[in-house]
């Protein structure tokens, strides 16, 4: 009662399922990423796994953001207080740094969020 085409269909399904789990439940989807926001709007979402340095154009000028060793930080920003730079490396899910004068903020999101929200 099973034709050869049936076997192909079952094989296709069995191959599809693991790839669905890997793609949708795997590391990339686990949310080891950071959102870079300009004025509260998400401008860029970056993975924390690949090291890179990004230049983000803000209201005052360019802020430089570095990703290294699963962490993210402000390297420099054209503001006066440098609160954002002093926030240092952000690693835990829910951590947040903002350069308010330049309207740029960075939020780390992970599968297991350490903080739901942070108030200053």
């Amino acid at each position, binding site marked *: 009662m099973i034709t050869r085409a*049936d076997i192909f269909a079952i094989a296709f399904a069995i191959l599809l399922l693991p790839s669905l789990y890997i793609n*949708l439940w795997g590391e990339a989807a686990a949310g080891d990423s950071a959102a870079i926001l300009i004025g509260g709007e998400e401008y860029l979402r970056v993975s924390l796994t690949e090291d890179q340095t990004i230049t983000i154009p803000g209201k005052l000028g360019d802020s430089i953001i570095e990703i290294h060793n699963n962490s993210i930080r402000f390297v420099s920003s054209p503001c006066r207080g440098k609160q954002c730079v002093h926030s240092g490396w952000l690693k835990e899910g829910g951590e947040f740094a903002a350069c308010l004068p330049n309207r740029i903020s960075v939020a780390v999101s992970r599968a297991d969020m350490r903080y739901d929200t942070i108030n200053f």
Partner: protein
Amino acid sequence: MTPSTSKRPKQAAGQTPDPIEIQSAALIFKTTRDDHRIAWLAALAISIHILESALPSPIPGIKPGLANVISITVLMLYGWSAASWVTLLRVLVGSIIIGTFLTPTFMLSLSGAVASLIVLWIAYHLPGKGFGAIGYSLLASMAHMAGQFFIAYLIFIPHPGLFRLLPPMMTMAVIFGIVNGIIVNTLIKRLNDT
């Protein structure tokens, strides 16, 4: 795509209209054997659909889709167009009776049905020996789930997090697709024996 519905007067079936028939067409519908068969099978599918909706499900959104057993059986016995009639009538009438007509539930049900019918059409018209009940049922079940997710993402929940539900749901679709295919095989064997 032969079957004409019982709702349609005869002249719509493509023949030259006979003047006398047109006069009487308003009152008398000529129905074919196919019409009766589709109506009976659709009624059966609707009954199963409603019965199933009354059963509580341990996980929301997961149900066996036993009404699709009828769709696949009809596909195997009477072809794709009869199967699409039965399926679409089932979704329409089933939703009206349950009271979900034009609600999100209905939209998802319809999008799943349409997606599975499209895939079944392709599978039915592929060259070669073709699929058996299990193949059809499995493909239809997976297409149903994929179509629902697509429409759900497009209209109701446009958030990428929605797709994290897809792997377990697709697993259930594969399991129930194969199980339903086995049921169809048994059903057809019984029908042939009698």
